[in-house]
């Protein structure tokens, strides 16, 4: 969901509700009051998320196995193994931070409803990647190795360390009392929204969509579509929390915070680029390191824009296959299942309705 739509549709409700200065989103405590609802947008997001429910069982991996066996060279095989290794641990880290930090400090019951839903989605994603891993890696040893990624693969360890650094920074925080603590909390949230879900995952999606643009791994791509949709929702939620916190306490977003954010993004890009060097070490035509870096910078600029900050890298999206992601699909039923049909249908039999 684009930020702008939320800005406009909910601006009035928020400013009216936020007049009493005592009830701010990041104030400590466990608010239980749903009526009157202070942040209706979070409740809407919760309901939207429910409507997007999918299950791992709907994903058909049968063609993927054939692709891996017959169409993948060593370079691509290496790419996919690294990617699965990252996915397998990435969502778990996000879920942990959600429980240990975000849920504790975002003090609105409607927002906590969304977070509960997000937690379920993170578990669903872990289930998806676990199923993927079991399907792609038939050898128990290779599976164990993939889950050991954090320890064994330096490029993934770097990414994990980056995450832990920002998790640990507020680990000891039980209540947010001071301005400095709120600032620290915001940095944690921004790290997860802009760097982990908004950059690391977006890079991972790019690898998947690159493969799909070559007609490979349709099962992975189909599941990733849904994961991608969920992650877009998580980001939209996090950015909305940031926007509200900022509106309620405008001076929180000062120059030093902005400098910290810029540095954080630089670090995240460097981490992800290091990962790219490993992932692409076999040489994959159509995915050069240079293009990957440019893509990361392009994505980072988008995150800055979502935070209302100036662009920093001025890069353009080099991956045309990511454009494909935006276009309506038309599936030939001989080839794959059409999964886009309506869920609820209402009405009664009549013979004079317009059609």
């Amino acid at each position: 969901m684009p930020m702008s739509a939320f800005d406009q549709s909910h601006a009035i409700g928020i400013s009216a509700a936020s007049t009493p200065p005592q009830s701010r989103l990041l104030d400590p405590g466990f608010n239980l009051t749903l009526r009157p609802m202070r942040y209706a947008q979070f409740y809407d997001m919760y309901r939207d998320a429910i409507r997007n429910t999918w299950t791992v069982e709907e994903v058909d991996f049968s063609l993927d196995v054939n692709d891996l066996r017959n169409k993948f060279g060593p370079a691509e095989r290496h790419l996919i193994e690294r990617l699965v290794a990252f996915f397998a641990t990435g969502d778990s880290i996000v879920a942990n931070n959600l429980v240990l930090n975000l849920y504790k400090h975002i003090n609105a019951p409607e927002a906590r409803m969304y977070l509960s839903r997000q937690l379920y989605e993170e578990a669903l994603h872990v289930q998806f990647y676990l199923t993927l891993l079991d399907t792609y890696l038939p050898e128990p040893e290779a599976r164990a190795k993939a889950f050991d990624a954090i320890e064994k693969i330096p490029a993934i360890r770097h990414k994990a360390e980056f995450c832990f650094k920002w998790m640990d920074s507020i680990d000891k925080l039980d209540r947010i009392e001071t301005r400095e603590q709120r600032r620290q909390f915001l940095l944690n949230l921004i790290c997860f929204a802009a760097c982990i879900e908004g950059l690391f995952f977006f890079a991972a999606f790019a690898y998947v969509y690159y493969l799909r643009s070559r007609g490979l791994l349709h099962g992975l791509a189909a599941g990733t579509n849904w994961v991608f949709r969920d992650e877009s929702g998580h980001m939209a939620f996090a950015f909305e929390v940031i926007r509200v916190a900022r509106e309620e306490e405008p001076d929180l977003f000062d120059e030093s915070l902005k400098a910290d954010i810029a540095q954080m993004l630089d670090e995240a890009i460097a981490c992800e680029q290091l990962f790219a060097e490993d992932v692409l070490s076999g040489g994959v035509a159509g995915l050069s390191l240079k293009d990957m870096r440019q893509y990361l910078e392009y994505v980072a600029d988008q995150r800055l824009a979502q935070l209302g900050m100036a662009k920093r890298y001025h890069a353009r999206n080099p991956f045309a296959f990511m454009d494909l992601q935006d276009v309506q699909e038309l599936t030939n039923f001989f080839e794959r299942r059409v999964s886009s049909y309506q869920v609820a249908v209402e009405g009664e039999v009549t013979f004079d309705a317009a059609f």
Partner: protein
Amino acid sequence: MSTTEQEIAASTARSTANQSDSRAPQFALTPPHSSGTMAVTKRNGKREPVDLNKIVRAVTRAADGLFSIDPMRVATRTISGLYDGATTRELDELSIRTAAMLTTEEPEYGRLAARLLSEYIAKEVAGQEIHAFSQSVTRGHELGLINARLLEFVQANARKLNSALDMELDRRFDYFGLRTVYDRYLLRHPKTRKVIETPQQFFLRIACALCEDVNESLELYRLMGSLDYLPSSPTLFNSGTTHEQLSSCFLLDSPDDSLESIYKRYADVAMLSKFSGGIGLAYTRVRARGSLIKSTNGLSNGIVPWLKTLDASVSAVNQGGKRKGAACVYLEPWHADVEEFLELRDNTGDEARRTHNLNLANWIPDLFMRRVEADAQWSLFDPKAVPHLVDRWGDSFNAAYEQAEAAGLASKQVKARELYARMMRTLAQTGNGWMTFKDKSNRACNQTAKEGNVVHLSNLCTEIIEVSSQGETAVCNLGSINLGQHMHADGFDFGKLADTVRVAVRQLDRVIDLNFYPIESTRSSNLKWRPVGLGVMGLQDVFFKLRLPFDSVEARDLSTRIAEEIYYNALVTSHELALERGAHPSFADTRAAQGELQFDAWGVTPSDMARWDALRENIRKGGLRNSLLIAIAPTATIASIAGCYECIEPMVSNLFKRETLSGDFLQVNKYLVEELKQLGQWTAEIRDRIKLAEGSVQDIKEIPERLRHIYRTAWEIPMRSLIDMMAARGAYIDQSASLNLFMESPNIGQLSSMYMYAWKAGLKTTYYMRSRPATKITKTTVTAAAAPALAPVATQEQAEAAVFCSLENPEYCEACQ
């Protein structure tokens, strides 16, 4: 082109700068690549530096006659995606993909990509020392792929055939079409998996395999190579090979109500699926749940467990790696298991009672529709109690049904409208549960003149209407005329159409004799009736070229006239064939033998009755070679090859993505692009707005209203007009057509009105109910970019609002109706 270079240089400089000012560069990064230092590995294993100019020259060579493309852009982008040490093969592939990706901006890039691919394929074939057409066929035979008949034919006429091959015809392909041919149709070496024929050699091979003399085959080759006409996929896959199964459709009568018969059908279905056929299978004879099984004194679990097994069997048969098997099960709505049948494709509920791979269709007698209209009761029966109902239609069915009701044989009674509403819900939720009409299909079928010859079902795509029985499995061979290729300066070219029909009918008739029949019941049936299914594709292209709105009276009249001319010329050709080779053996049992033609069943009088009366008389005397001639199939894959819109369908979106086994491809409406270019409106901004609006131009007010009217999508034109157009052409379609219907957010009220109207209009069959996703994937590159240059906020809001209204208020949304 210098801008592109500058951009690349600038971005390289930026990357370097960022690296140095990045505050935590604890790990070394690989320096960015520049084309100066990069090398490629050539096919002979030697390395050489990447030469930008060489790539630009290659692209420019392929781009002659294309004026809107920038070869330098393709070349620099290609190099940018390359890694050090990549092979020249990878370089070629990348340049093709790079050009293809630019298609959304400028359709000519699609042409360029197609030409680069054409050269790539030629290199692959020539690299195996295959140059002339006859060499390709010989190699295919050596590898065990090509049959001896074709080899002999080609060797006997090698000189003439080799010199007839026209490489220039490759230029007619757009990228998606050629890619499809390359990925799935060209013969491949069984071990190396390299293709052993070029696209033109492929077409010529098909033509030689389907004809008896050289001149005939060259005539057919020109038609296919020009993309004027294409046979169906099974014919394209298998002609001239060692397994010449060339038919598209098989229609199997319901298994008898016995274990042996049910299991024999599984085997029949598997054998027919194996060689690319689509299956229609009736199931109405099998007893319902709760019916007594005498031998074991147990109670039957009904048809669902049998269909579950069928489901697994169908998905297990992979059609030679080319596509998955597919089948559609037909059930009459008086079968007592019909309610469970309608739930077979639900996403929720007991998985043991779900069949995700089967398509479902309702085979509906008029009596049911009348009871729905009258809001009356409807009786459900166990077929064991009324085994005769399956073989009756019309008045005879009505009488038998009401007699059974009066005799108290019904297992259960429901309100007809409640069952109808369930059918509508299944259509809305799954797109499946197609509405096909038993009585009209029988009444207007040439094969049902003699009592006992009954149509029991349609096929996988609801366009075939043929009789079947326990001993007769109906078969149909298909081919489609690309209507957009039959135009001249003054409009539609009916003369060229007549010529194409004659060649096509002869080819389709020949397939009947050549065909490899996987099971015996197909052979006997096909030789007796000799039915064929000539169809069309690209009707929408004709309308775009003539700037006719799809729902205009002019469009409907033209469509009807095209149908009439095709039917007339097909009958003429089939009659000529009957004079040359004899009428089909069961001609005396047909309505045509009594002088009755398709339009008579519709109560329609053609405009030029004199020529029809003359033809009628000729047919009565000299017969027809084929009992059925016309069927409009969905043409999903061959329309892609021909680069036109599918069959008789309106365009679904001005911009959409095709996801296929060969990867994802963008399709942009080239007619709209041309119009917008002329107006100077084909800009990045308009493109993004079309993307945001899911391929619609209706809210882009800068585009003139007249154009917006023409470029409405299938979601935006009234379905009543599609049904009217189908009913008007129906008088000249002796089988049926795969008619999809489209509704953004359907509700029961709209659907029940629409299908009641379709029945009253006299349609034999309908196909998918197409609706749109309830939720949509977030736009990555448009909305998230939030870039100032992109879509204005107003449009974004509208897009959001449209999504919102269809989600929250499917009933009250005026915008969707």
